[in-house]
């Protein structure tokens, strides 16, 4: 259905917010309603006011009036903002900002306020009901709307939970082929971008606020002027456009201005696929994989499980083939060749670390073995490894799959296409379609042309839609200087960022939850993007900007989308008017999925030009998007900044990743700091990296599994104008990136500069000290001994207990996590953070070991010989051991274990954590006095403590974000995973009202629903037919450290890998 009906304008929306009653956002704090008013103002206020003026104002006041005035002023979002500039937002950072000298001042303030609060009764709270209540809104019950999140050339269908008009949580859309109901960290975190207080809020011209109409006028005059030259000097620069409407809008515009050009630049999207397709088929095609059908998969440096279009769908299909029912079950087999350890590589059965440049050699060799005529020499180990792969691939003709990584050159892709055809995989494990991408030419080339034109003074009107070229364009383009040359530059962006500062016009871009649009998924399926909330600020969409230059300036995006689909729906089974509501409701437009095509191969592997032989001792620098902030677009997203990166477990920083061996030769040691320690702060050596005639200083990080002589430079950090959260974090790898070496560079120099840098690492220690924590085995071992998971430790029999067991006659909530499926992607961590109002604490606090994630993902390397119980050994990757070159990597999500014999409960002095009748380990925040005894006594260390006031209770936008079903925890209380008790209760209440038992899968925890690989299953363990009960009955099912006899309700299914029996290990 269409939420716009009740969200006509801000005023109404925000009244709804006020309407959200007692349970709403800021529980546990008095002035709820005032703050909600702030939110209202925040959306309207425009005037710029300066701090000095305010100071003057304040001087005139005195005494009680003074404080009152402050409160009034605090209602003004700009004053709020200014304050925040002075005292940064997050509690922790705020901590840093306030030095001890400021202490007395503070004391004074707090005392005065305490005085105010002390006298009299708490202020009256208000309820502001609707004036006309929209039919589908029942205050207190969330509504769910389907839409889609566009993400660099792809779109992920999502379902958004909305509380009285506030979107609060995003889930995957089961009906959408690119989501299949799951999501990833970016999708989960995108909701925070919507409420980011640092978003640009207005139209600006050279730094001055302008009105939208002013822009429209300017646009029209510009349009007419370029019209004269039929668009000569008119350029449009976009990222990859997956919106058919926008695509056609631009095309129409170009038709109107024949001489105008459309360029595009995606810093983190490889040209491999397009160029490869051109090389192989002479045309651009879109490749859709069907990993679910493949028994053997070979990834040539492709992280298809966690990046690139279709990642979620692929992860889901792949995981389903990792489902192991009983000893007779079968598993697919994954071979990965890659220079950089990736999520995909970590779940491989065989992983071969090869330098980026050697991947092509490997592919050629592979092609040769499969009789494609190409050839290349491989080193001993790699050669043996290759033989195993070839054997396996040939065995599984038609059911195998070779995936080339998008950062690999065209040749690798062409070879991959050829091989897949040769193996007869096309049509089964993969198929080709028309490209989803609107402008499928090389990124760098496209941008190079533009720059060339600019420097030749050919460009006088440039529209930049999204992206951030000033920050992320190859440094040899020197885009900033170029942009200044352009007389009229117009920039659409959600932030007033690096590029906006160099543009004449800045248009603030709406969040995808704020406006109408559409987008195509990885297989072409189109969805209508419908707004969940009317824009919080004066923001606009790309559609609006393009329209501004068309003959219909000011045409709403809604019309643009409707217009496009009225035409486009001609060939669909249902016309727009017939289908519209259904499209919106389902989140997909039926019949828009691209039909498979069969391009014919115009590629002869033998004719490939000989590749320059690899120089093994030359260091290679590999550029990759960062796992959490991607190409930098999420730099200002606190959730993603604080999300530990899957393999390094670093937060708030990127680092130059080096292999243990290289670290040893360069002697880049890590020093574990006493403050925080292994679970917090590591000092790492700073290195100067000189590359392509430019230089950057980066913190180094030793990462087991990085290919020899390879240095990985993650992109997306070192932003200078990202906003409060993202500015000046990490180092900017773009500085040493040039257009001719976008992904792999050599001839660089890396020299330690003798200094060190503190990195916030949430898990440094990587081995299990021989404890029964993460149990793994191979398929053979499993078939031989299905109960292998239980050898390392068993819980003592219940009969040993002197106490009589508590009975759980009703529901017994439990969780089973299949370690065979978990690939460490960390979507669950962010999902949990979004669902449960978990605060961001900032780098300093993470370095003190105080991050608040309710679910963490532990990363272990098996087969390593570092054993810290031996003298001197610290299990420290910076202590080189050969086993660290290519260790087997496993991930283990660790939420609260909800132990039946909970050690935490027994030691709590005030009954703040007790067991519910359904076996939940309840945490009662308002009873907690914060002794932290429970955390000390928790063997799994899953409890989190509010050491300071971590929650941001001032920023109005963040209040809108909060999930009203979950308490916002105050300072000094313990918290932890609750199995999403709010979801349990809501479902139970509905079931009880109908006097029926809760059905299996009716309750889905946040982590479970986000998980792309279906690794997490929650349910009623008492019901033998439930999914969770079946899993717990599996012989692989074990509980961590069973011998402690805490009897966790969260249990794990041992990981079983499927290495080739005849094959090379690793």
């Amino acid at each position: 259905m269409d939420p716009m009906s009740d969200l006509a304008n801000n005023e109404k929306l925000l009244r709804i917010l006020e309407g959200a009653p007692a349970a709403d956002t800021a529980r546990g704090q008095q002035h709820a309603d005032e703050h909600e008013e702030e939110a209202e103002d925040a959306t309207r206020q425009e005037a710029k006011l300066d701090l000095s003026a305010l100071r003057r104002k304040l001087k005139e006041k005195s005494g009680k009036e003074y404080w009152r005035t402050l409160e009034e002023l605090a209602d003004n979002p700009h004053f709020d903002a200014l304050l925040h500039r002075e005292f940064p937002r997050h509690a922790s950072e705020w901590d840093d900002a306030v030095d001890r000298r400021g202490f007395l001042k503070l004391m004074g303030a707090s005392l005065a306020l305490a005085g105010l609060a002390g006298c009299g009764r708490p202020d009256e709270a208000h309820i502001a009901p609707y004036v006309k209540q929209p039919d589908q809104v029942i205050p207190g019950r969330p509504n769910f709307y389907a839409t889609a999140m566009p993400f660099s050339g792809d779109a992920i269908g999502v379902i958004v939970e909305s509380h009285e008009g506030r979107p609060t949580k995003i889930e995957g859309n089961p009906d959408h082929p690119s989501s299949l109901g799951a999501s990833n960290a970016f999708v989960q975190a995108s909701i925070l971008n919507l409420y980011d207080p640092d978003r640009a809020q207005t139209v600006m011209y050279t730094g001055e606020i302008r009105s939208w109409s002013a822009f429209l006028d300017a646009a029209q005059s510009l349009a007419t002027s370029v019209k004269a030259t039929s668009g000569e000097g008119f350029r449009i620069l976009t990222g990859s456009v997956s919106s058919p409407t926008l695509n056609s809008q631009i095309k129409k515009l170009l038709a109107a201005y024949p001489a105008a050009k459309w360029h595009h630049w995606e810093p983190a999207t490889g040209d491999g696929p397009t160029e490869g397709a051109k090389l192989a088929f002479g045309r651009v095609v879109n490749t859709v994989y069907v990993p679910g059908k493949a028994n053997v998969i070979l990834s040539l440096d492709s992280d298809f499980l966690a990046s690139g279009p279709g990642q979620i769908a692929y992860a889901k299909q792949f995981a389903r083939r990792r489902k192991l029912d009983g000893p007779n079950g079968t598993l697919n087999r994954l071979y990965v060749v890659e220079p950089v350890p990736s999520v995909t590589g970590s779940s491989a059965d065989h992983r071969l670390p090869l330098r980026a440049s050697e991947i092509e050699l490997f592919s050629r060799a592979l092609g040769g073995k499969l009789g494609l005529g190409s050839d290349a020499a491989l080193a001993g180990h790699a050669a043996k490894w290759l033989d195993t792969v070839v054997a396996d691939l040939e065995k599984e003709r038609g059911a195998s799959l070779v995936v080339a990584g998008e950062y690999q050159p065209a040749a690798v892709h062409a070879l991959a296409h050829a091989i897949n055809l040769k193996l007869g995989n096309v049509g089964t494990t993969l198929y080709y379609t028309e490209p989803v991408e609107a402008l499928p030419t090389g990124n760098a080339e496209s941008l190079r042309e533009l720059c060339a034109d600019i420097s030749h003074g050919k460009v006088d009107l440039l529209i930049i839609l999204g992206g951030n070229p000033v920050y992320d364009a190859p440094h040899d383009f020197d885009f900033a200087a170029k942009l200044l040359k352009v007389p009229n530059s117009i920039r659409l962006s959600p932030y007033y960022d690096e590029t906006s500062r160099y543009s004449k016009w800045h248009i603030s871009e709406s969040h995808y939850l704020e406006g109408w649009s559409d987008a195509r998924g990885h297989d072409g399926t189109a969805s209508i993007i419908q707004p969940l909330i009317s824009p919080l600020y004066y923001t606009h969409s790309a559609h609006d900007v393009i329209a501004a230059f068309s003959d219909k300036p000011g045409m709403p995006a809604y019309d643009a989308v409707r217009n496009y689909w009225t035409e486009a729906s001609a060939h669909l089974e249902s016309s727009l008017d017939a289908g519209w509501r259904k499209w919106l409701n389902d989140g997909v437009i039926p019949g828009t999925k691209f039909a498979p095509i069969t391009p014919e191969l115009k590629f002869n592997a033998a004719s490939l030009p000989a590749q320059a032989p690899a120089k093994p001792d030359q260091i290679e620098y590999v550029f990759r998007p960062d796992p959490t902030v991607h190409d930098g677009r999420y730099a200002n997203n606190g959730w993603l900044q604080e999300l530990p990166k899957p393999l390094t477990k670093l937060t708030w920083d990127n680092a130059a990743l080096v292999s243990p061996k290289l670290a040893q030769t360069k002697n880049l040691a890590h020093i574990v700091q006493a403050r925080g320690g292994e679970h917090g702060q590591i000092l790492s050596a700073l290195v100067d990296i000189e590359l392509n005639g430019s230089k950057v200083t980066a913190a180094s990080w030793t990462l087991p599994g990085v290919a020899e002589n390879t240095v990985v430079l993650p992109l997306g950090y070192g932003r200078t104008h990202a906003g409060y959260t993202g500015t000046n974090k990490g180092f900017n790898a773009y500085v040493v990136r040039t257009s001719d070496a976008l992904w792999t560079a050599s001839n660089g120099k890396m020299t330690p500069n003798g200094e060190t840098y503190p990195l916030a690492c949430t898990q440094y220690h990587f081995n299990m000290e021989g404890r029964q924590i993460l149990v793994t085995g191979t398929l053979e071992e499993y078939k031989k001994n299905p109960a292998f998971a239980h050898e390392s430790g068993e819980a003592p029999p219940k009969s040993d207990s002197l106490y009589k067991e508590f009975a759980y006659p009703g529901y017994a909530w439990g969780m089973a996590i299949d370690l065979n499926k978990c690939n460490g992607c960390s979507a669950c961590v962010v999902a949990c953070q979004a669902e449960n109002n978990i605060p961001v604490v900032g780098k300093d606090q993470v370095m003190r070991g105080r991050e608040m994630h309710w679910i963490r993902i532990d990363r272990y390397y098996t087969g390593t010989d570092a054993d810290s119980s031996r003298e001197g050994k610290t299990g420290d990757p910076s202590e080189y051991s050969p086993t660290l070159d290519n260790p087997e990597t496993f991930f283990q999500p660790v939420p609260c274990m909800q132990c039946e014999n909970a050690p935490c409960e027994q030691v709590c002095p005030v009954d703040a954590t007790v067991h519910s009748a359904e076996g939940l380990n309840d945490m009662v925040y308002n009873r907690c006095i914060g002794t932290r005894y429970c955390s000390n006594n928790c063997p799994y260390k899953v409890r989190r403590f509010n050491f300071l006031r971590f929650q941001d209770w001032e920023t109005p936008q963040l209040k809108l974000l909060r999930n009203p079903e979950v308490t916002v925890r105050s300072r000094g209380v313990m918290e932890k995973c609750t199995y999403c008790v709010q979801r349990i209760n809501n479902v139970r209440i509905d079931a009880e009202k109908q006097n029926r038992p809760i059905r299996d899968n009716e309750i889905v925890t946040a982590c479970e629903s986000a998980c792309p690989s279906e690794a997490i299953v929650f349910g009623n363990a008492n019901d033998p037919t439930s999914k969770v009960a079946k899993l717990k009955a599996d012989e692989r099912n074990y509980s961590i450290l069973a011998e402690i006899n805490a009897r966790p309700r969260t249990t794990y299914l041992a990981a079983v890998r499927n290495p080739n029996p005849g094959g090379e290990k690793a």
Partner: protein
Amino acid sequence: MSVTQPPIDSPEIRRLEPVLAPGHTYLSVTDKIAAVVLTRPLGIGWLAGFGLTFSLVMLLFLSLAWLITKGVGIWGINIPIGWGFAIVNFVWWIGIGHAGTLISAILYLLNQKWRTSINRFAEAMTLFAVACAGIFPLIHTGRPWMAYYMFPYPSTMGIWPQFRSPLIWDVFAVSTYGTVSLLFWYVGLLPDLATLRDRAKDRAQQLAYGVLSLGWRNSAHHWHRYQSAYLLLAGLATPLVLSVHTVVSFDFSVAIVPGWHTTIFPPYFVAGAIYSGFAMVLTLAIPLRKAYGLEDFITMRHLENMAKVMLATGLIVAYGYFIEFFMAYYSGNKFDVFLANQRLHGPYSHFYYALILCNILTPQLLWFEKVRRNVAALFIMSLVINTGMWLERFVIVVISLTRDYMPSAWGRYSATFWDYSTFVGTLGLFVMLMFLFVRGLPAIAISEMRELVAHQSHGKGEHQ
């Protein structure tokens, strides 16, 4: 009672000098001790000492204010190390608080004459130590203003404290211990307050001591009930003293943290407590007797006896350390073994070795009479042992938490400025209270000293 007992008559006892220097009369002891309170003017030393400690107390208040404003996050604690200095200090102070009541109660029951001249300020010390200790359990909580949840009162929430938690046991143990020690101390003071009342010259003192002494008039009937009450108190305090540190040790031994979960804890905590308690008594007694010329009352014999007690308890503590390792290796529990190794080789091993040096090696010097009878040496040693006992608690609390079950969650701990300032602040508070005490109340039990005089001057002659 004590007076009836003939002195144990054996060569070595005779070799020892008496617990009271010869030549004292009822009047002289009374005068000498009462004078400190009533007539002696405030010395520059006292003023300086008081000033210094007072400023430390101000530092304490500052630290607490900042703590309340910001939260326990200003300390070095984190996950997994949820307890840091606060709990270390708590256990340390409580330990120190054990000597006083122990001396007064157990030595009284064992009828040790030498207790008389030290029990009074030892008891005072106990009270002040318990006061310092009491601060920490309160402020270490995340929400101190909610700490009253720990008391069993009929709340409108209809919910009660959780009596399986050792922290609740602490609440009762410590408060009981505080109360009983106070009563014990006050009862002991009654006759002396009366003495001060009667000897006070100016009205203010008369009123003050008059009120405090409740009109005590040394009647034989009073004495009779007094003595039976005092004896009963001693009898009650003895098991109490032992129970308190046992309960404190439960905070750890009841938990399942490797390095905490040990059955040896209760006895060896108690021994440790007495150990540090006596060390602290020495630390205080030696300067005190010097400053106020009380060498006649606190004689070499006292110091030597206390040294012997320290040696004995020190050995028990050493045994405790040994048993921890023995249990770890003998049981073969992989977590305990690992932790044992951590203590020896882990990142905090230097603390452990320092602890061994302070608590086990240094005290061995006490085997030598020369050392035992050397005031300076004893003083230094008492300081060393106090340090050692603090380290012991640090090792137990912190090291165990840094390396528990999940390697992925291992961490480390380092104290912040506020950790230190709070600790130093309580030290200041403790000493400041001591300063006030010696000037406000008789630091030595006068009436008991008179008994000693009687006992000495008339030998056995006095009773038949």
